[in-house]
């Protein structure tokens, strides 16, 4: 806490009062700026098309309709099909849950080895893994498409899963490695003396201590995978598209009348899971971001 408020003897009480209120107003205005798009999205999503055409962007809806939400969920058209976001929303869940679980488990084991069972070359492997976090994924897009084709996974959810796991390992390993290096080496030695082996020490000692970093890893990976668009649009086919790709298709679909209220409802639906995670576990979300900032 850099606590600079306590010692300002040259100012009068009134001056301080004005200053603090000014500060508060500025911060409040910024808060409005950050909230405005969410507000506009929400109000637009419950307005009728007629009201959208005639009313103001920031006006509250005169009458509330949930029709656009229902349409976004189950009828909106993307390209050729008109099934709404629902099937793609479930695609994203089907994709994200196993990918998050697998990459977190692998990252935890990798981090455990790199931080606690150091062997010659382990640092080099860590550097190689870390390096993989930084590459622009465009550079692997073409060969990955080819590889998925060879494996028979092109355009499938398992194929996308493979992609997310492979390129997520770098981050999860980094999280766990940085967490496990803070655990004193004596703990591992004590467990060895107690007769525990490699896996037993991991399961009985390290894993129970890892709850916070497991949460960070899950949130980070979930946000990344849920919000991903590049891999989704590159490697999925009509039936296996994740929700972001479907949202983009709905918004940019050129058939029929442009239904802005449906677009906004769809956007909110697509954003809900990660927003929920942020609201429920914001502390861990920020930790992931700042830990991930070592990587980029």
């Amino acid at each position, binding site marked *: 806490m850099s606590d600079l408020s306590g010692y300002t003897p040259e100012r009068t009480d009134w001056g301080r009062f004005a200053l603090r209120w000014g500060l508060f107003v500025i911060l409040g205005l910024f808060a409005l700026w950050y909230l405005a798009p969410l507000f506009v999205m929400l109000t637009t999503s419950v307005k009728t098309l007629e009201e959208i055409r005639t009313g103001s962007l920031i006006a509250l809806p005169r009458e509330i309709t949930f029709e656009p939400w229902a349409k976004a969920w189950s009828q909106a058209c993307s390209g050729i099909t008109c099934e709404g976001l629902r099937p793609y929303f479930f695609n994203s869940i089907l994709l994200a849950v196993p990918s998050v679980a697998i990459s977190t488990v692998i990252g935890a084991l990798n981090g455990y080895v790199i931080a606690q069972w150091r062997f010659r070359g382990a640092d080099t492997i860590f550097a190689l893994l870390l390096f993989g976090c930084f590459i622009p994924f465009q550079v692997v897009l073409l060969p990955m498409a080819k590889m998925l084709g060879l494996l028979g996974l092109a355009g499938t959810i398992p194929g996308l899963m493979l992609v997310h796991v492979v390129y997520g390992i770098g981050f999860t390993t980094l999280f766990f490695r940085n967490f496990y290096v803070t655990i*004193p080496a*004596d*703990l591992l*030695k*004590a*467990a*060895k*003396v*107690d*007769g*525990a082996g490699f896996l*037993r020490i991991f399961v*009985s*000692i390290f894993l*129970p*201590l890892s709850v916070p970093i497991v949460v960070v890893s899950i949130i980070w990976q979930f946000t990344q995978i849920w919000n991903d668009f590049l891999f989704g649009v590159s490697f999925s086919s009509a039936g296996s598209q994740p929700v972001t790709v479907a949202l983009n298709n709905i918004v940019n679909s050129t058939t029929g009348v442009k239904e802005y209220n449906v677009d906004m409802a769809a956007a909110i639906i697509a954003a809900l899971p990660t927003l929920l995670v942020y609201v429920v576990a914001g502390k861990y979300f920020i930790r992931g971001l700042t830990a991930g900032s070592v990587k980029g």
Partner: protein
Amino acid sequence: MARLTLEKLGKRYGRVQALSDIDLAIETGEFVVFVGPSGCGKSTLLRCIAGLEEISEGELAFDGERVNELTPAERGVAMVFQSYALYPHMTVYENMAFGLRLAKAGKGAVEERVREAARMLQLEPLLDRLPRQLSGGQRQRVAIGRAIVRDPRVFLFDEPLSNLDAALRVQTRIEIAGLHERMAETTMIYVTHDQVEAMTLADRIVVLRDGRVEQVGAPMELYHHPANTFVARFIGSPSMNLLAAEPTDAGVQVKGFAPTPLTAPPGARGLSLGVRPENLRLAEDGETPFYEGDASLVEKLGESQLVYFDMGAEAEPLVARLPGALPAKKGDRMRLATDPEALRLFDDAGQAVRAG
């Protein structure tokens, strides 16, 4: 409950030789302390015995059986760590039971052993607490308890007192001594850099320097008959005065001091004469002083005081431990005497020349 033999034991890290040619036999039930300055290899040696470090050369045997390749649990060792290394998410009870459960001890046996150890260490009211709810001293006792329940063949301590405050350190030292008495059959090895701990706890002390054994012996043997100047300085506080000496016709003599009755081997050069501060006293009237000079500094310790005499710019000052009641002050002229039996002589390589 094991007799340890170390034969030509060595440890290398890449090109760095951390330990070399360690030959040592530790008897069943013996309390041995490894002592030496930091970086001397004492902790490495302990971890080699524990099975936490691979032994590069030589052999380690428990009761005559080679154990180089065995894991710590297979060797039957238990260890108390400097940082205690308690499992933070387990209660005191679980911390102590973990090793037993891994060894597939029955539920009743686990319960019985943990309760017994808890009783012995007065941990009974704390069994359901987590380590972070305990004080430093209590954590230390849990760490000891975790080692006791396993009923180890060899009990290892890695600087267990260095994280405790001074008062608690003395108390725990006494407790460990008591533990050794109660577990008379269990071999104990204790690593420390503190010579007071070494002196008070050990049956035998092993002094290490630069990965080699300098001397092995009972505490008082090391105190009275150090094998070399390193041990002479390391054991005892303040450390032994070492004065450059020369053989003369009257006996070995330090410049500016009275001659001593010690004789040097013919042709000896670069001798040092050693005398402990506590073996210097004020000369009685009429007695020929061993040394006469002005006190350059006086440190009052209460029961005694340390009086320093300047020995010139090159040499360390001479220190004498004199009774605390003596009204000494800086600048006082003093006449010091000593008993010839207390004098030690070392050659130019630092090795003791004449024991006794």
